[in-house]
C-alpha cells in the first residue's frame, strides 16, 4: 500500500466520506435553524 495510485485512492475515498458527512450535518443544521425543534415534518 505504499505506491502513489493506491494512496491517492484511499485519500480520495476518505475525502469523499468526510465531505459527505460534513454536508449531511450542514444540511440538517440549516434545516432546523430557526424552526421548532420538535416540528413534525422533516
Amino acid at each position, binding site marked *: *500500500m505504499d505506491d502513489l495510485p493506491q494512496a491517492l485512492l484511499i485519500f480520495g475515498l476518505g475525502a469523499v*466520506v*468526510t465531505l459527505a*458527512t*460534513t454536508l449531511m*450535518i450542514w444540511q440538517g443544521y440549516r434545516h432546523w435553524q430557526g424552526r421548532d*425543534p*420538535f416540528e413534525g415534518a*422533516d
Partner: protein
Amino acid sequence: MAQPFLAPGIAWALVVIFSVLWIALGVSWGRKGKGDADDYMLAGRNIGLALSTATLMASWVTGNTTLLAPEFGYRNGLWGMFSYALAGLGLILFAPLALRIKQLMPAGRTSGDFFRLRYGRAAWWVFMVITAIYTLGFLMTQAMGAGILLEALSGFDYRLGMVVVIGVSTIYTLYGGMRAVVGTDFIQSLLIMVLLVVVAVLAFRQFPAPEVHRELVASHPGRLNLLLPAGLLIAWNSALFSMGEVFHNNIWWSRVFASRPSVVFRSFVFGGLAWMTVPVVTGSIGLVALAQAIELPQVNMVFPVVASQLLGAGGAAMVFVVVFASLTSTLDSLLASTADLVAEDVVFKLLNPQLSDAELKRATRLVVIGLGVVTLALSWPRLDSLASVLFFTGALVASTIWPVAYGLYWRSANRVAAIAAMVAGSVCGLLAYTLIAPYCAALISAAVSALVMAVGTQLWPESFSWHILKEG
C-alpha cells in the same frame, strides 16, 4: 532502560504537587451545588463558555496528542502533522449536533438515552457493545501510556506511574463528580497550552523556521511533499476516527448536557480549534528534531528529547507537567462520563428503575471506583503496541457517525438501518483493519455505515416523533 529525562527527585516533587492540587481542588469543587445525582453527574447543567471550552479541549488532549503527534510529524512530515490535527474536526462537526441534542433532550443524561429512545433497545445493545470496547480500550491506552511515559520521562516503575495517575484521577472524580472534572480540566488545559507555547517558542528561537525548512529541503524533502504516499494514506483516518469517538461517546454528550444551551455550539467549535493547535505545535517539534538530526532512543520520545536537549532540565520538567496534565484530564473525563453511562443506563434504566436519587448518586460513585480498579487490572500487564489497540476501536466507533447524525436530524431515519449500519460498518472496518491496513479501519467502517444508513432510510422511511427524545 534508557536514561530518564528528569531527575527522580524533581519528578516526585512535581507528581506530589500536582496530585495534591488536583485532589484538593476536586474535593473542594465537589462540595458546591445541590448535591443530588444530576449535580454530581452533570455539574448542575450550568457550565459557561470558558469552562466548557476548556474541558472539551483538555479531555481531547491525551497522552497521544503530546507524544504521538510529534512522532507523526517526524515520520510523515507535514501530512503527519496535519492529519493528526484533523482529529479536531470531530469536536467541530459535533457542534451543530450538540445544539440539536440540547434542544431535543433538555433532561437527557447520556448518549445511551439517545440510542434507546431514538432507535430502540436492540440498537442500544449494539451501541453499548461498541462503546464498552472503545471505552475499555481508551482507558487501557491512557493507563498504559501513563506507566510507559512516566517511566521514560522520570525513571518511575511502569506500574507505579500507572497507579499514581489512575489513583489521583479516580479520587478527585469520586469525590467531586463532573464539577471536579470540569474545574481541574480548566487548569490542566491552561497548563498544557501555556507550557506548549513556551517550549515551541524557545525551540524556534534556537532553530528559526526558515532554518528548519532549509535543512528539511536539503536532507528530507519527502517530509515536505504533500503527495507523500504514507502521508496520503493516513490523511483522513484521524478525522473519521475522531468523529466516531466524539459522536457516540458519553464524554462529549455529558458535556452537552452539562453546558448552558447558549454556549454549547460555540464551546465545541472553540474547543476543536484550540485542540488543533496542540498537534500542530507538538508536530512541528518533530520537524525540528528531523531538521537538526537529533538522535532519538525511541521515535515516540521526540517531544521530551527535543525539549530536554534544547531547554535542559527545565524543558524536561515542562514536558512532564504537560504529559501528567494531559493524562489526568483525559482519565477523569473517561471515568466520570462512563460511570454516568453505566449507572444511568444499566443500573437505573435497565436493572432498577425504582432507584432513588441518592441511590443513583451512590451507584455512580461505586462505578467510578469499579472502573478505576478494572482499568488498573487490565493495564497491569504491559503492552507496548498501544496504537494498534486504538486503530482497532476505530473500526467500531466510526460506524456510529451516520446513525447518530441522521437520527438527530431526520425523522425518517430507520431504526433497523441504524442497527445494520453499526453492525455492517464495524464488521467491514475490522476486515479492513486485518486485510488492508489498520489506518483504513475507520474509513471503511464510516463509508459502509453511511451507505447502509442512507439507503435503508430511503427505502424504508419511518416517522419518528421527536417528543419521545424529550423523555430522556
